[in-house]
């Protein structure tokens, strides 16, 4: 009960900003430590793969980026429900702050996947279901950011972006199951499959460490971006108030 009330208290933007300011240094330190550990495990400890050789090390960057690209969009989809159904004061702030982060990690997944594909598949790109649906995810992020910047009124932009985000969220299960539904060059799920992961622990643990490190990085950047967005909105309100009071101020007597 106390936990629930402390979570709902964060719905207040001022309380959320104070909370973010308090936890960000600790989270940033944990992120730096996990990134260092993840890179050490991935680049030094993990052995070369018996088939892929050293190229397997690209996976420690590619897979966490791909997970975060999808997680960012899932956060935006949940936040969009918050905008349209509950009109939560922080929902649109969360959605807006997640978009550039999700786009960046999606781009990173596409770029590293391409660089992994050339030595393994013999090509940088194929129009198979997984790669194409992931490219669509990237384009969705860009489209949402463009739509938001094209609408000046924030509440209208929030609603339009929420609707488009929810429409685009149909792509997330398509990305996830594309490797099962269609015959793709991309390998099927090897970590999140039913039963045991199809990966040796010497490769799996460095991958999970990097996934945790990148997730922490996303959380830190998202919290920081949400705090900045709250300042931007307060600034906008103050500017409008100042302009309105200047417009309606009585003319000075001559």
């Amino acid at each position, binding site marked *: 009960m106390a936990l629930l009330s402390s979570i709902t208290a964060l719905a207040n933007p001022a309380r959320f900003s104070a909370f973010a300011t308090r936890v960000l240094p600790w989270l940033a330190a944990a992120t730096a430590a996990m990134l260092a550990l993840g890179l050490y495990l991935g680049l030094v400890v993990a052995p070369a793969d018996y088939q892929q050789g050293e190229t397997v090390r690209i996976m420690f*960057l590619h897979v966490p980026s791909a997970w975060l690209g999808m997680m960012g969009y899932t956060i935006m989809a949940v936040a969009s429900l918050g905008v349209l159904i509950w009109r939560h004061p922080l929902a649109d702030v969360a959605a807006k702050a997640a978009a*550039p982060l999700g786009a960046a990690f999606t781009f*990173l997944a596409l770029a590293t996947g391409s660089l*992994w594909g050339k030595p393994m598949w013999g090509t940088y790109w194929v129009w198979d279901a997984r790669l194409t649906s992931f490219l669509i995810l990237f384009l969705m992020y860009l489209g949402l950011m463009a739509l938001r910047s094209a609408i000046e009124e924030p509440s209208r932009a929030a609603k339009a972006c929420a609707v488009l985000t929810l429409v685009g969220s149909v792509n997330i299960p398509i990305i996830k199951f594309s490797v099962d539904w269609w015959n793709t060059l991309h390998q099927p799920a090897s970590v999140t499959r039913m039963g045991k992961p199809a990966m040796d622990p010497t490769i799996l643990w460095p991958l999970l460490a990097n996934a945790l490190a990148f997730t922490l990085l996303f959380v830190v950047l998202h919290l*920081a971006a949400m705090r900045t967005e709250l300042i931007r909105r307060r600034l906008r309100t103050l500017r409008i108030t100042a302009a309105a009071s200047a417009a309606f101020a009585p003319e000075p007597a001559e």
Partner: protein
Amino acid sequence: MNDPHLGFIVASYAIGLTVVVALIGWTILDYRAQSRALAELEARSGRRRSRP
């Protein structure tokens, strides 16, 4: 590490480093810019309100 595909590995991590540094840098710079603008506006409006 003596792998024929070393260039692909280095390029991947170079792009990863660039993206992460750019995201962190953009987040810090945006926060500083917005905080400064808010402080300036509040200081200005505070002076205006304090005038008779």
